[in-house]
C-alpha cells in the first residue's frame, strides 16, 4: 500500500464506523421509548451519518474516477467494509443500543481528539474538529443513560448488565490495530490507539462504576471487522441499505 492507499483505507475505517452505527440508530426512528428520546437518538444518527458523508467525500476525492460519497457506502460488498463489529450489532433493545453507543462514543471521541491534536492531515483534522463537538455531546448523553439505567430499577440494571456482558466481547477489537491503522499511525495522520486504549478503559470504568455495573473480567476479543470479516448481521444491513442502488443500478435519485 502506498501512502495514498493507506489514507484512503484509513478514512474508510473512520467513515464506515459512523455510517453503520448511524444506520443502526436510524432504525429506532419512530420506535423510541418516549418521544423526546426518539428525537435525541435521531439527532445522533444525523450527526454520525453527516460525519460519514464528509469522510466519504474526502475518500472519494483521493480515489478519483467514479468514486463518490454514495458509491462507497452503497456499492461496496461486505468484505470491503472496515467498520468495527461493535457498530453492526443489532439494536436488540434500548439497553444494547445505549451500551453500544457508549462504548463507541468513548472510542469515537478519543480517536477524533487525537486526530485533531496530532494528525498531520489537515482535512482529517478539519473533519475531526467538527466531529469532536458532536461526539462530546453524544458521550455525555450515552454516559448519562448508562448511569440512569444501571442505577435505575432492578429490571433496568439486569438488562444493562446483560448488554454490557454481551457487547464487551466486541470492545477488544477497538484497539487491535489493523495493518492500515498501524501504517496510518506511523505516517502521522492516524490516531494513536495505544494511548486511546488506556483512556478508554479509564472512562468506561468510571461510568460503569457510577452506574453500579460490573466490568466483565474476560479479555477475549471478537475481531475481524477492520479487515472485512463481519458478523452475519452485516449482510442484512447492506441488503437493506443498498437495495435501491442494487435494484436500479446507475440512476439518480
Amino acid at each position, binding site marked *: 500500500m502506498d501512502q495514498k492507499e493507506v489514507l484512503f483505507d484509513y478514512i474508510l475505517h473512520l467513515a464506515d464506523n459512523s455510517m453503520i452505527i448511524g*444506520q443502526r440508530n*436510524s*432504525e429506532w*426512528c*419512530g*420506535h*423510541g*421509548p*418516549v*418521544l*423526546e*428520546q*426518539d*428525537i435525541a437518538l*435521531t*439527532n445522533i*444518527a*444525523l450527526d454520525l*451519518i*453527516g460525519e*460519514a*458523508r464528509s469522510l*466519504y467525500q474526502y475518500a472519494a476525492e483521493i480515489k478519483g474516477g467514479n468514486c463518490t*460519497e*454514495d458509491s462507497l*457506502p*452503497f456499492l461496496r460488498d461486505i468484505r470491503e467494509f472496515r467498520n468495527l463489529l461493535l457498530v453492526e450489532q443489532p439494536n436488540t*433493545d*434500548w439497553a444494547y443500543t445505549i451500551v453500544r453507543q457508549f462504548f463507541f462514543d468513548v472510542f469515537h471521541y478519543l480517536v477524533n481528539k487525537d486526530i485533531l491534536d496530532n494528525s498531520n492531515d489537515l482535512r482529517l483534522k478539519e473533519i475531526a474538529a467538527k466531529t469532536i463537538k458532536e461526539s462530546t455531546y453524544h458521550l455525555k448523553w450515552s454516559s448519562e443513560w448508562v*448511569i*440512569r*439505567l444501571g*442505577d*435505575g*430499577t432492578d*429490571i*433496568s440494571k439486569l*438488562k444493562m448488565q446483560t448488554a454490557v456482558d454481551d457487547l464487551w466481547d466486541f470492545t477488544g477489537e477497538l484497539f487491535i490495530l489493523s495493518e492500515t491503522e498501524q501504517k496510518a499511525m506511523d505516517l502521522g495522520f492516524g490516531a494513536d490507539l495505544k494511548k486511546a486504549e488506556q483512556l478508554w478503559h479509564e472512562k468506561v470504568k468510571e461510568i460503569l462504576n457510577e452506574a453500579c455495573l460490573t466490568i466483565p473480567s474476560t479479555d477475549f476479543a471478537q475481531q475481524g471487522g477492520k479487515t472485512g470479516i463481519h458478523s452475519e448481521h452485516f449482510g442484512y444491513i447492506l441488503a*437493506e*441499505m443498498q*437495495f*435501491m*442502488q442494487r435494484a*436500479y443500478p446507475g*440512476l*439518480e*435519485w
Partner: protein
Amino acid sequence: MEINLEEQFQAKIEQEIKIEPRDWMPEKYRKTLLRQISQHAHSEIVGMLPEGNWITRAPNLRRKVALLAKVQDEAGHGLYLYSAAETLGMSRDQMLEELHTGKAKYSSIFNYPTLTWADMGAIGWLVDGAAIMNQVPLCRTSYGPYARAMVRVCKEESFHQRQGYEIMLTLCKGSEAQKAMAQDALNRWWWPSIMMFGPNDDNSPNSAQSMKWKIKRFSNDELRQKFIDVTVSQTEILGLTIPDKDLKWNESRGHYDFGTINWEEFNNVVAGKGPCNKERLNARVKAWENGAWVRDAATAYAEKRANKKNNSTEAA
C-alpha cells in the same frame, strides 16, 4: 352567570382575542379542541411509520439525512401538539392510552403502505401539501397554545413538501422505470390525499360549531378545492397525470371540477379496515410497551438522586 360567561367568551372570539389555558371556556370547546389537537398529535406520530419504513433504504446519503430529519420533525410536531393539548387538562400518557386502545383516531392516510421509494416523494408532495393547506389557517386558530404550536409546525414543515417534490422531480427526469414509479405513486396517493380534508361539508356535523369558535377557518370542501387547484399545475410540471378522468378546469367556477370521492373506502379505513391499520397501531403499542422499563428506570433514578440530595442538605 353561565350564559353571561358564554357570551363573553364568544365576544372574545369575534374580536380575535386568543383564548388561553386558564381562561373560562365552554366545556364543549375544551373537548372539541382536546379531541382535535390530540388527533393531530397522534397523526404526526403514526405518520412517522410509513416514511420511517424507508429511512434505512434511502437511495443515497443526501436523501437519507433529509428523510431522517423529516421524520424526526414529525416527532417534534407530535410533541408540540401533545404539549398544547396538555394545557387543556389531559396528560400525554392519557392521550397515548386512548390512541393505543383505539379510542382516539389519527389521519387515515397513514394506513396506506409505502411500497416504493417514489412513495417518499408522493407523501412529501401530496400528503404534506394537503397537511399544510389544513395547517396554515390553524396558525390563527382561536386557542393560543394550539395556534403557537402550529406556527412552529408550519415553519418547520416548509422543507417537507419541497423535499417530496424534489424526489418526484428527480424521478420524472430519470429513466422510464423511475417515471413509471412516480406515476404509480401518484395513482395510489392521490385519492387518499384529497380524502385527508375529511367528509364533504354536508356530512361534517361538527364543522359549523368549530367555524363559529374559529377553531377552523375554512370548511373541508374549501380546503380540498384549494389543494386540487394548486396541485394540478405542479403535476403538469412533473409531466404526470392525476388519476381522475373528471378533472377539468371550470371557467365559470374558476376552479377545477373533480370526480366523486369513494367515501366508502374512506369510511372503511377510518373504521380500521385499511391496509395497514393493524400494523401501525401495533408498532406504536410495541414501542410504548418496550419503552416502559426505560421510562420507569429514569423515574426511579431521578427519585434516588433527589432523595440523596435532600438527605445531604439535611445533614449539612
